[in-house]
């Protein structure tokens, strides 16, 4: 099975107007027969949220790729996979803390959410802390979601940098994948138009034209086109938030 992966991050009106950098970041890495992807959303209340998001997206991707070689990934019950993801996140947090202390800052200054996936034809996992969505849609339409976790209010969520991050780490198994499957990772700014109203999967009238286009696109053209969609002025009347979308297409 071959994979094509596309990623775009667009700053929202909120941050553009105040000349604040986009707080979202995404990263992906090809592995043998599969893909690893991570999307992070820096907290608006953290002054280094964008730096935290960038660091963790890249670092976690890299370390998951390394940890994947561990045989325990193959255990079907998810317990071993959870332990491996916990270890990767713990390591990344430790490094981020070192960076923070070197700048006389705290981990909280780098607060961000994280939604990631590791997927091959044999299946895989979403790993998720906070809001955003992970969605896997098979060619048949069957869908698996990793939904956002919010507090009581829509603007409250959980961060990798929280003390209680382990309690909020959620792993969702991804089943066996066949050609035509689509995996999406997105920040909460993208969800209002990329997820359906019932929150059961992708919003077809949005995702289908995008996927049809990307199947025939080069990585460069596809990423540009995806950014064009996220930057479309119609999104400005939907959300003022930053918008990130990573799409992995199994072909």
């Amino acid at each position, binding site marked *: 099975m071959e994979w094509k992966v596309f990623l775009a991050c667009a700053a*929202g009106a*909120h941050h553009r107007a105040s000349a604040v950098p986009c*707080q979202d970041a995404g990263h992906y890495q090809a592995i043998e027969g599969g893909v690893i992807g991570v999307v992070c*959303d820096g*907290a*608006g*209340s*953290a002054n280094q949220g964008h730096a935290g998001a960038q660091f963790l997206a890249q670092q976690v991707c890299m370390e998951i790729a390394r940890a994947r070689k561990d045989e325990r990934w193959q255990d079907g019950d998810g317990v071993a996979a959870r332990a491996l993801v916990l270890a990767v996140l713990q390591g990344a947090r430790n490094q981020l803390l070192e960076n923070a202390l070197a700048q006389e800052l705290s981990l909280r200054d780098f*607060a961000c*959410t994280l939604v990631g996936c590791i997927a091959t034809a044999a299946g895989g996992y979403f790993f998720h802390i*906070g*809001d955003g969505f992970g969605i896997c849609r098979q060619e048949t339409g069957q869908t698996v979601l990793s939904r956002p976790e*919010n507090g*009581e*209010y*829509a*603007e*409250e*969520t959980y*961060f990798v940098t929280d003390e209680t991050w382990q309690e909020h780490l959620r792993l969702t198994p991804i089943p066996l994948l066949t050609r035509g499957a689509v995996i999406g990772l997105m920040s*909460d*700014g993208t*969800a*209002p*138009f990329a*997820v*359906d*109203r019932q*929150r059961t999967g992708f*919003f077809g*009238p*949005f995702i289908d*034209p*995008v996927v049809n*286009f990307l199947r*025939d*696109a*080069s990585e460069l*053209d596809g990423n*540009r*086109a*995806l950014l*064009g*969609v996220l930057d*479309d002025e*119609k*999104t400005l*009347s*939907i*959300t*003022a*938030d*930053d918008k990130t979308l990573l799409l992995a297409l199994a072909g």
Partner: protein
Amino acid sequence: MSNVIPDVALIDNSDERAPLVLVLDCSGSMLDDGKVDLLNEGLKTLESELKNDPITARCGRVLVISFGGDNNVEIMGDWTDAMDFTPPKLVAGGLTPLGTAMKCALDEVEAQKVQMRGAGVSYKRPIIMLLSDGEPTDDWQDVAADCKSAEAAHKVNIMAIGIGGQANRQILGAFSAKGALNLSGLKFKELFIWLSRSIQAVSRATTGGTVQLNPVDSWAQVQT
């Protein structure tokens, strides 16, 4: 190859709401200096400001509670989306049952939350804005304590605002941990423009963000 993806539907599938309750003094003293007329004008300004911003028009959800008469508290219509908000015509006269009105506001907020949760609608922290030109004529102390507790538990954000020189700012301030502010002159219009901008800020607040409201100098009296 073109870099424009054709036929992509970009519509909002989310149902997020930013609830606002206005608790408005309609006691007899609001007839003095045409205060109630200015308040009615201010509500019309709020209506147009809310409707002018597409995100606020869709996310804002408004309820008006008036108090006056023979210790009457009236919920003036149902909760309405900002895009459908038509301000009620307020008529002044009678007493100031402010405590009962605030109790009613707290109850309405919690009932609305239950309804929204049941419908799978996510929401921002509700705002209650209290406007009064006097002091309560009913029992208010327990309700004021309940209001402060509700704020401390992050259930609601309360703004208490005094109108004119007869407003008892000390009592009004007991309803919010932030104390009370006084309206400068009778700048209802400026107040409601500010309120609409605040609802805009709340509607657009990014996840995990702290909502920074605009400065209040356009309408608040500077304390000396």
